[in-house]
């Protein structure tokens, strides 16, 4: 039972990270019809900024966290302005490939900075409790995980309020519903696109921090964790915010349960699944769900006309 609880806790904390990245994916897809493969790169770039400010420059951690996250949002804004604005109206896949190009640019710059040794974030989480973790009823919980979970919940709630109440939130919803009608109503659609990328950048940077914080460290392969939010988005449906959250929970829990129970399963059945199967399991689920429900669990069904 302890094993199960431990797996659940870790799965949920992974889900929190995935849902932050996934929300960025969904926001961009909903407003611009663009699947941004640059999201994982933004996440690690955010982590890199925080690390360079806090560790290399010696700025207090909480200030550099805020600056780093804001800067990542600004990078998102710049990317939208320079690279994606000329592509409005182009085929969906051309734009997706373009974001892969952006991903390569951002990540190469970052890899050059990271070098061979992994980078620390300089955050105080490892110093809390017993090496950054505590025991509750036999289950080891890291403070970083608690922080990640509560931040994710807080962000999801505040985004919801933002979309319902604020002027820009309503304008965003209008834009995602019908761009031309929104333009006709006097909404500055270009500004909305910029804002969406800004928010997506901020979300990615938060996720980037929780991926690399504490003893996890930032290395050249950290982005793979953020990339695993992609199956989460696809399972939930590319254009559904609740779907992104549910998908993230499914993916996070699957990954954790597979990681904890793979060994027992292999002994029980005699089938070897191989090293790191827990990292592939999300993609297998995505594969299966796409086969049976092409638009995801919560996505709107696409109406086709010739």
């Amino acid at each position: 039972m302890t094993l199960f609880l431990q797996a659940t806790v870790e799965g949920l904390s992974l889900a929190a990270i995935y849902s932050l990245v996934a929300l960025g994916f969904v926001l961009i897809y909903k407003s611009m019809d663009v699947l941004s493969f640059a999201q994982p790169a933004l996440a690690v770039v955010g982590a890199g900024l925080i690390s360079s400010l806090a560790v290399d420059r010696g700025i207090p951690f909480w200030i550099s966290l805020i600056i780093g996250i804001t800067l990542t949002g600004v990078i998102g804004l710049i990317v939208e302005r320079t690279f994606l604005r000329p592509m409005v109206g182009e085929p969906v896949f051309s734009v997706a490939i373009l974001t892969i190009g952006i991903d390569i640019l951002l990540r190469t710059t970052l890899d050059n900075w990271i070098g061979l040794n992994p980078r620390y974030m300089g955050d105080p989480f490892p110093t809390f409790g017993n090496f950054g973790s505590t025991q509750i009823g036999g289950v080891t919980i890291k403070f970083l995980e608690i922080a990640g979970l509560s931040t994710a919940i807080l962000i999801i709630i505040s985004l919801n309020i933002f979309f319902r109440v604020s002027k820009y939130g309503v304008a965003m919803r209008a834009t995602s519903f019908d761009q031309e009608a929104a333009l006709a109503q006097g909404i500055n659609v270009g500004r909305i696109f910029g804002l969406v990328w800004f928010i997506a950048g901020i979300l990615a940077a938060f996720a980037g921090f929780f991926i690399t914080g504490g003893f996890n460290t930032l290395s050249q392969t950290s982005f793979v964790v953020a990339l695993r939010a992609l199956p989460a988005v696809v399972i939930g449906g590319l254009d559904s915010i609740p779907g992104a959250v549910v998908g993230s929970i499914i993916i996070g829990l699957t990954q954790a349960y597979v990681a904890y129970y793979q060994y027992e399963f292999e002994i029980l059945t005699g089938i070897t699944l191989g090293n790191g199967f827990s990292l592939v399991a999300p993609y297998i689920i995505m594969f299966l769900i796409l086969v049976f429900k092409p638009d995801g669990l919560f996505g709107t069904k696409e109406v086709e006309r010739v």
Partner: protein
Amino acid sequence: MKSRPNLYTNYAKETAIFSNNTQKFWFFVLLLLSISLCFVATDYWILLISRSLAFSIGAWGINIVSGLAGQITLAHGSFIGIGVYTAAVLGGVASNSVWGLELDMLIWLPVAGIVAALFSFILSPIAVRLKGLNLALVTLAFLFICSHIFSNFISVTGGAGIGRKSAKLTLLGVNLEEGLLVGNYFLQKNQILYFICLFSCITMGFGFKNLVRSRAGRAYAGIRDGDIAAEALGVNLFRYKASAFALASFYAGVGGSLASTISGGIEPGFFNLLFSILAVAIIVIGGAGTVLGPLFGAFFYVMMPGFIQYILKITHLTESALPLNLGQIEAMLFGLCIILFLIFEPRGLWGIWFRLRNYFKAWPFSY
């Protein structure tokens, strides 16, 4: 009639492989040049060109699925991997940890393609149901599953981080690993590989050109431009989507196994997401849907490191004086090229070539 090469009096003539004598002439000039190049150029450039030729075969493959049939795939790298490992098992040398049958090249080269094509049928029932972004995502999932299998199927791939040797070069029972004495001239292994690559590249290129002008090619174009409309016109979606994937995988298998023989050894980690993106990027840079585009794209990609090093040499810069290392410069340039081509020249290098050619055709008049 003879003095008006651009006047086509029937359809067969317009769709001919060489629609006029100028093209025929330049093709044979290029062929002679590339054969004689083999005896002039240094080993380094011969290897680079052979690699580009092998890569362009793979690029034609993804051009069938993505350029002609308009179905975006991110799993092309996995099919290349399947081809590579089939070739390695059939043609490679067995060791304690890996299988190897040491068969003839005449067997492993086509079989690598066929096995890759057979594996592509796993995707075909899904490819029929999905399209666009969703299909791309399914192929992405397929890619991750494949690379997991590659890193764990040790008796075939040698395992992650270790890898294995690729297929041996035995053609018609003659071992070509140490070179071959033809009359008085000693042909080195690189030169033999170059000829094999050149021959396969020309064959596969003509195959692609023929596919474009066949019934299947027209069906692919129909699916790309509007799959529902094509279906309404009687194009069997299942058959043509599945065959597009199968043909693409065949090209992938052949091109991949050639390229792996050139490099000598293969590590499973090579067939990751970046490698599949590379395949897409090559046809985006070269020009998707065109016959020459993948060739341009492959040459551009493979030659780039060579040219970067050449530029460094003539400017007397050392690698340590640069802010980025060579691999990173390459990656940056590649990323930039993808972005700039998509924004400014969506037809890729082929588009530039097309405009250049037309400019000189009409020279000295601008229209």
